[in-house]
């Protein structure tokens, strides 16, 4: 066991932090803000990262990556998430849509789809959840019927982030064999979002406008060469993909950054002298360390070529609740002023805490609810019997 980053990774962290400080505009408040500058900025930011070989950092060189280690990639994830993810939607390409294509895609699919991702030129969204298929994802009803040119897709996807960014492509989960049992008969399609028959309806949220979308597919024709992996074997792909996604977001790094800001606020305001404040923030710092180490355990396994399903869920169980807890502790510390949003000049910490709080309301729901994560650990990690 070794608990520190090597010197080269630490230098990379310093360089990256300096780059982020110099590049992020003062108005940057992350995604899902009512600010038309946000998405164009993330595209520009990704091109800048790509120019430095920092975008597809850990991808193999043959797919346009820099071939860096999983730990260098971890540094990148931490610094990006701590800065409210200035890569915008494109972190998904790097963390799991790209790796899924590398693992399951044909040579033709890889050479077609991976280079634009590596150059930061393309936005993907994922079509998983449906109005009636959330935690019970395998009950999804979107159909992909065979067609002489491939498939015809009909159905509705929901909670689709970035579909209106607009997304260029969608990683879509659809039932291609209605006769098969639940987990069989599901296929993954790569869908061009400009295809006729796709309608995107933005859904406003507590965090602001247009975080999510409902996407309707009405007779959408998907060419046969846009099927990823084997027909009917999509569930296996998605399980691997969700594991990559759960490892991929360094939520603990954002929690640690907000906590640093709370410490600074407590010091400046004199509240840091209150034992209850010291105890509360110290307790959260301990949880940050726990969440960080559990993420590192999952990365350690991934670095050895293992898909760390149970470990990724464990890390996520810690990190998602931590993000919520830190933001709530922040609201408690700031008191009523903490409710003020960033546009209000009286907002402490420029409204960061309430923004973090609201954004993290769905954190324990996204990418598999907390309860689903616990079910994964219960069955696959502990071998407990299936629920009725």
């Amino acid at each position: 066991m070794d608990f520190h980053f090597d010197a080269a990774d630490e230098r990379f962290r310093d360089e990256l932090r300096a780059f982020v400080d110099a590049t992020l505009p003062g108005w940057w408040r992350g995604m899902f803000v009512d600010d038309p500058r946000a998405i164009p900025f993330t595209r520009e930011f990704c091109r800048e990262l790509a120019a430095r070989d920092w975008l597809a950092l850990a991808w193999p060189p043959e797919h346009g990556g820099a071939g860096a280690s999983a730990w260098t990639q971890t540094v990148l994830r931490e610094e990006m998430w701590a800065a409210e993810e200035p890569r915008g939607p494109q972190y998904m390409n790097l963390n799991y849509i790209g790796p899924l294509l590398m693992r399951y895609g044909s040579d033709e699919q890889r050479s077609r789809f991976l280079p634009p991702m590596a150059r930061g030129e393309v936005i993907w969204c994922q079509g998983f959840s449906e109005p009636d298929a959330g935690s019970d994802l395998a009950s999804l009803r979107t159909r992909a019927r065979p067609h002489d040119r491939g498939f015809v897709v009909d159905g509705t996807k929901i909670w689709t982030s970035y579909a209106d960014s607009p997304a260029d492509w969608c990683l879509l989960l659809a039932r291609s064999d209605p006769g098969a049992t639940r987990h069989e008969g599901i296929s993954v399609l790569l869908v061009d979002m400009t295809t006729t028959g796709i309608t995107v309806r933005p859904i406003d949220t507590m965090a602001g406008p247009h975080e999510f979308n409902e996407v309707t597919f009405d007779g959408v024709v998907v060419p046969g060469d846009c099927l990823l992996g084997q027909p009917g074997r999509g569930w296996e792909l998605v399980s691997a993909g969700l594991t990559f996604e759960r490892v991929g977001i360094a939520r603990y790094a954002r929690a640690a950054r907000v906590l640093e800001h709370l410490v600074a606020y407590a010091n400046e305001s004199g509240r840091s002298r209150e034992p209850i404040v010291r105890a509360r923030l110290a307790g959260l710092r301990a949880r940050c360390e726990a969440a960080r180490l559990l993420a590192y355990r999952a990365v350690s396994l991934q670095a050895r070529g293992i898909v760390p399903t149970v470990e990724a869920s464990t890390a996520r169980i810690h990190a998602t609740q931590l993000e919520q807890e830190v933001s709530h502790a922040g609201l408690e510390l700031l008191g009523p002023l903490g409710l003020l949003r960033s546009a209000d000049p009286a907002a402490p910490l420029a409204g960061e805490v309430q923004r973090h709080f609201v954004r993290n309301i769905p954190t324990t729901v996204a990418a598999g609810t907390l309860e689903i994560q616990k079910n994964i650990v219960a069955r696959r990690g502990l071998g407990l019997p299936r629920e009725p």
Partner: protein
Amino acid sequence: MDLTRTDEQAILADTAAAFVSRECPLARVRTIEASGDWHDPTLWTAMADLGWCGLALPTEYGGAGQGLLDVAVLAEQLGRGPVPSPLLESTTLAALPIAWMGSPAQRRRFLPALASGRAIGTCAVFEPGMSDAWSDVARRGAPRLDGHKLLVPWANIADVLLVATATGLWVVDRDNRSWACERHDAFAGTPLFAVTLDDAQAEPLGPFGPADDVAGPETTRRVLDATAVVQLAYAVGAAEACLDLAVRHASEREQFGRPIGAFQAVAHRCVDMRTDIDACRYLAYRAAWAFDCEPHDTTLAVAAALTYAADALRRIFVHAHQVHGASGFSTEQDLHLFTRRLTELEIRFATSPRHQEQLARAMGMTTDTA
């Protein structure tokens, strides 16, 4: 960065796991606990023969020259027993402090016997009325010590006694017949003693004589931190055993026509144990690693581990008993062998507000007036 065990650590853990299941099954744990001393000389010799008494001691004194992280790896496996033994406390409360701070003469005198298991060591810290303010510990004259200490583990069988005073640690040798001890009546576990020092001949630990009033408590803290980290690793092993029992019970016990583990309310308690145990394990390893690799920068890692563990060990205890229902409270079942220990370790080593305060300081919280 790599959180997987090295080959050597994996071999150590596997050897220890095999030893525990072969040499110290639960029936023997019960026998040893019933014996009063909690010390089984046969078991002790077997562990000493494996080199575990000197695992982290320098090779020149007969040790294996490994680090505190390796001791933590061993401790976790012993905790799965739970093996009742002075081995870990002898290592961290006496042998390591002598190795770290002792004069060359003191090292030569004590370490070979501690490394080989011919001698057992411990350390006396608490005094009546003392909570967590180590700096209040009084030294009553030198080179002779008078005073009353509480909660000293293994004091009846120890050959070497370290004594925490306001000017640092002092060594008292058993040969001098210099302490009297009386067993406490404590819930849960390790034999703990009230120790009386009456004009005991002692020498300050270290080549430079008594430390000053500032350094004194610091050296004591360092010893207690290392001890707490290793004991946390032991608690992780005990908690892992609790989880095994809980999962087995939840899989076998049927109510409402199905195993209770099929109910999410029960299953998720087991998962909460799993995720807390995993966190405690890596926090303990991280802190132990800091002693080996960043010895001047251990505060945050130690404080984070123990601050987290203080809450987590209690949660694990509660979940384990809740999943077991009434049967867990019965001493005919095995659960209590582990959960009593968890509470002891939580309260002795983790709940201290000192750890929270250390963490608050390490993360930059000031106490300045604004």
